[in-house]
């Protein structure tokens, strides 16, 4: 569904993404793992048009996305949930969701039912201001708002940030349900265990390059991941 080839992205003259190639098959969940600063967020921002790639191509359903601005990317069906969530704190839950459906207001009612089914908690709090929700609820709302735009591909950037372990588990159960509904997911995560529970395919980014790519099962027991996070030095003790 999404094909990224030899993508270079950077700020000024520093390249953060250095020739990343990856594929996201339709209907599956794919994870991008890697430590802080490995370029996950930069990659996502480039995918949705918030950053302009230096070179390389992004194909979505076979059509190049290069040069599109974020609103147009959203219209194509790629929706990004930033790690910062980027909610509208003073609008109610319902209004946040309405804005999520900005590009497709007609589908609002049907999407709303679907989203409330998935996150019943949000239905209870529909007229509460987003800023007053708890961290977990805010994350749910961020994902729900993205779902309102009828995404074909959902980009999730560190959805577990700042959540307690129990909430992380719950969140991933919802994501699993979403995947079964047929939404393709590309996930950046620091919480390796959680990500591996959802995703079949894994890319490990390290300093802007793909250090490992393969099935989740082949990552288990591989030393690549650990090396990416903690470097080669600690490996002596293993």
């Amino acid at each position, binding site marked *: 569904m999404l094909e990224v080839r030899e993508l270079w992205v950077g700020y000024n*003259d520093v390249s953060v993404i250095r020739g990343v190639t990856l594929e996201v098959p339709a209907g599956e969940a794919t994870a991008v793992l890697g430590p802080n600063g490995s370029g996950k967020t930069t990659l996502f921002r480039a995918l949705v048009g918030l950053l302009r790639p230096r070179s390389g191509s992004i194909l979505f359903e076979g059509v190049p996305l290069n040069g599109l601005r974020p609103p147009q990317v959203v219209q194509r069906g790629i929706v990004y949930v930033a790690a910062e969530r980027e909610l509208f704190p003073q609008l109610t839950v319902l209004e946040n969701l309405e804005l999520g459906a900005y590009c497709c207001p007609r589908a609002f009612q049907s999407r709303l039912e679907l989203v409330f089914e998935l996150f019943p908690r949000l239905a209870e709090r529909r007229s509460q201001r987003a800023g007053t929700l708890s961290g977990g609820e805010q994350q749910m709302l961020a994902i729900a708002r993205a779902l309102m735009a009828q995404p074909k591909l959902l980009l999730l950037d560190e959805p577990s940030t700042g959540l307690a372990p129990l909430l992380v588990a719950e969140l991933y159960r919802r994501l699993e349900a979403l995947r079964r509904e047929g939404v393709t997911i590309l996930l950046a*995560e620091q919480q*390796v265990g*959680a990500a591996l529970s959802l995703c079949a395919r894994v890319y490990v980014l390290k300093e802007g390059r793909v250090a490992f790519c393969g099935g989740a099962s082949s990552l*288990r027991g591989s*030393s690549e991941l650990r090396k990416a996070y*903690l470097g080669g*030095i600690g490996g002596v*003790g*293993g």
Partner: protein
Amino acid sequence: MSPQSEEILLRCCEVTKRFGGLVVLWEVNLEVRRGSLIGLIGPNGAGKTTLLNVISGLLQPDSGRVEFLGRLINGLPAHAVVRLGIGRVLQIPRLFPHLTVEENVLVGVLFGRRKPPAREEAQEEARKFLTLVGLEGKHRERVGKLNTQEKRLVDLARALATEPRMLLVDELMSGLSLVEMERYTTLLRRIREQLGVAILWVEHVMEAILGTVDEVVVLDHGAVIAQGSPAEIAQDPLVIEAYLGTGAREVLGAHMGYAGSS
């Protein structure tokens, strides 16, 4: 170690900082000895840069004390802290674009020291530091012409030009290739050996830091969760959890060498 090298330069006692309701630093205790090289690591949003900002006087802590050479320095403006001997290298270099490379460093020589040298001497000093960081021959260029790596080096030279006793370095490595990282680590080691400057080095590229520093301090959610030698830190379950998340240990446990421990 000789008693002199044991001398404590910087001491943070129970430093707490909030932004609105968000606690960014929670009772952080930290000691930096003369001439030591300490790595400060932690996941995104752990409060590393905030801690550096508090130490360098750009932010004031809500409570707690920051002492430098036994003197309380919280409450002092940043320029006074610099003159006391704490240099700062920013993550994204902010240079003076209308000045040449040499003039940028000259600013540090002339204003960052308690007793600035006379004009000819100052110019020589500035060149000395540019040579130290490997920018000789670039001193007449305008900084806008430099690439980001070179800008970082100018920033480093400027901080060194203030003759600090301690250098705060913020994520020098982001966006670098392995070869470039090597260069920086060598450079920082040389700075410490040649100038006897203590370095507190914030980094999230763990690999770069673990092989270089004497001691590692790990921040997570604004609190120090671990402290010790690089080898200890790399095995610390709390640290691994902070970086990789819960569950990672179970997944990777077999390979980590402490399966089943919690």
